[in-house]
């Protein structure tokens, strides 16, 4: 009776699992697969390519910064370790290109002065409302943490920049709305920002759309995670250290435990002891007890 019950339960469990698993697997929506690039900053040893970050800054400056802010970056970040690593002089010169509102001065007046290394990146608009109003009602998001704020991260940003297409027939678009393969809902207010030869790279690299998309994406990933390189370096060292420590601790533990086990000899290798007992008991089954020495 109980065996039957047991069998029945087994069957019910199998049926539940078999009926649930395919639903979960096949009901996944098929998303538009993102374009994938073997980014240099991915993986345990991932680091940025300096030249790519420097070009990325140029793309940001010449193309994106008209609408998009990066309010959490400082100009000093441009020369700091792990970033584009412009020289300090270059970074100073970049900062000085911008007008920063400062004050109030001793007369109580606000004034403008050239940017300094300690300043935040100057925003194209004073506030979100101004920015929204100037861009047809769609706020161009601040790009400080954009690479972390979108599912798919770097691949998503890269795909989006290259995802502009003719809308399929029957797909309705309002004025000043564009079709993008990778944008959720496929509608985007930003017109395709990149085109071949749009800017002239100061290092002479050919400015194809793909190249610019790649560089700006790398730049935005760095902007989102300026300590990514030290994070990877420290991570590798820490984990190697911990693995060595774990090995030492594990063997110390074995050593300490062997003390207890030898104090309780009988308990050692239980498995073995029981095998022997079984062997002996079986061997002498039905025999004269006297022969049992």
């Amino acid at each position, binding site marked *: 009776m109980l065996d039957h019950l047991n069998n029945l339960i087994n069957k019910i469990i199998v049926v539940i699992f078999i009926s*649930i698993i395919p639903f979960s697997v096949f009901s996944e929506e098929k998303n538009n697969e993102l374009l994938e690039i073997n980014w240099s900053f991915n993986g345990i040893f991932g680091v940025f390519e300096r030249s790519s970050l420097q070009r990325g800054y140029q793309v940001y400056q010449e193309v994106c910064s008209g609408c998009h802010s990066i309010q959490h970056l400082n100009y000093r970040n441009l020369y700091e370790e792990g970033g584009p690593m412009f020289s300090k002089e270059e970074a100073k010169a970049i900062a000085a290109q911008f007008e920063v509102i400062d004050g109030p001065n001793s007369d109580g007046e606000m004034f403008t002065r050239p940017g300094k290394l300690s300043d935040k990146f100057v925003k194209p608009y004073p506030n979100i409302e101004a920015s929204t109003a100037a861009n047809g009602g769609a706020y161009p998001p601040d790009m400080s943490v954009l690479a972390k*704020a979108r599912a798919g991260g770097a691949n998503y940003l890269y795909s989006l920049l290259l995802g502009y297409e003719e809308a399929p027939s029957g797909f309705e678009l309002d004025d000043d709305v564009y079709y993008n393969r990778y944008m959720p809902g496929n509608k985007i207010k930003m017109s395709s920002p990149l085109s071949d030869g749009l800017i002239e790279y100061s290092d002479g690299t050919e400015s194809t759309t793909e190249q610019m998309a790649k560089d700006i994406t790398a730049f935005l990933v760095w902007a989102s995670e300026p300590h990514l390189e030290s994070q990877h370096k*420290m991570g590798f060292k820490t*984990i190697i250290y911990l693995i060595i420590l774990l090995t030492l601790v594990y063997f110390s533990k074995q050593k300490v435990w062997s003390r207890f086990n030898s104090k309780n000899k009988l*308990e050692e290798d239980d498995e073995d002891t029981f095998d022997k007992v*079984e062997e002996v008991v079986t061997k002498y089954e039905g025999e004269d007890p006297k022969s049992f020495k």
Partner: protein
Amino acid sequence: MSEEKYVPKSKLAQWFDSRLPLLTLSHHLQEYPTPKNLNYWWTFGGILTFCLITQIVTGLVLAMHYVAHVDHAFESIEHIMRDVNYGWLIRYVHANGASMFFLAVYIHIFRSLFYGSYKAPRELIWIIGLLIYVLMMATAFMGYVLPWGQMSFWGATVITNLFSAIPFIGESITTWLWGGFSVDNPTLNRFYSLHYLLPFLTVGLVILHIWSLHIPGNNNPIGIDVKKNSNETMPFHPYMVMKDLTALLVFIIIFLWFVFFAPNVLGHPDNYIEANPLVTPAHIVPEWYLLPFYAILRAIPSKLGGVIFMFAAILILILLPWLDTSKVRSAVFRPIYKKFFWVLLFMVILLGYLGAKPPEGIYLILSRIATAYYFIHFLILLPLLGRYEKTDPLPQSISDPVLDKPGLLDKVKKAASKYEGENVGSFK
């Protein structure tokens, strides 16, 4: 508890200990007898203590730089990430630490379910543990609100709105929780205050949890009582300390792998978008560790019903020691319970998966099935199993051979009966 009275060696120590027995306490903690057959699933108590301390220490540093104001919270997090020395490390340890804390607590809870650690005489340990778990959830939820991202804001809105389902007084309670008429600056401030307070209450409960554990001592994989101060137990120090340390290091390696190489995979990208009360995210989802309850909440067609079932899903666990009427603790000797244990685990994971999906179509149907199963498991299956399940024979002691060799005990007994009355001395 060790039986012999501990007396410190030096006069000074005796003087101190007779006034405040800290040395006796320390001695007790070192000598505390633990069953020698505890497996690595028993190391999660130590791991959880580590998690709690890590959260408190990192949280303390974060609190020095964080600004609890709707206009500055998001910015102050970026300040921590970029400009505070090793701020990124401290924040990622704290954020991933919450996830690892829950990972460990779920393993700890399911360990208890499998080996029947909640049964007499350990009901209070179990109940205090559940209180800790509830506090953890409250703390984690409020902590997730602090960065003031989109999921922070909308998660807070959804969860606090649940209270409005309470008849008559619901709306007033919600307004009272918010400190206004929507989730806003007063809400953020009080969440910050409570997020700082609750971990210290948790520390208090952890002390009670361990205290109540040290009265009956640990359960063990076999689930039978061990003879204390025999060779069935070993002192906590150094044996368990070394074993716990080994497991802890493995845990820390996994933990730090997330921190250094995938610090954001357990979070939601939307939380890197600053909170905007005018834009609702496409899908509002809580952190992964709350998803099973979120699935239960949404599986019930009425709001009030959903809230009741969600809270019932936690409260029902308090009754577990009395719902499970089986005298046998460990699932090792409960062939049918063991199967249902795995089904329950599967269903809870399934609920977690469904909690992240929109509540429609097949997802909704599956959530209802899994929710129903969850309650059936505790309310119907466990009481019935206690009555009708035929459990396997229990060994006499935790080192009894019957465990490994079924049928051997009978043989040994048979053989032994033959020698009854014989000279035992010849037997060697």
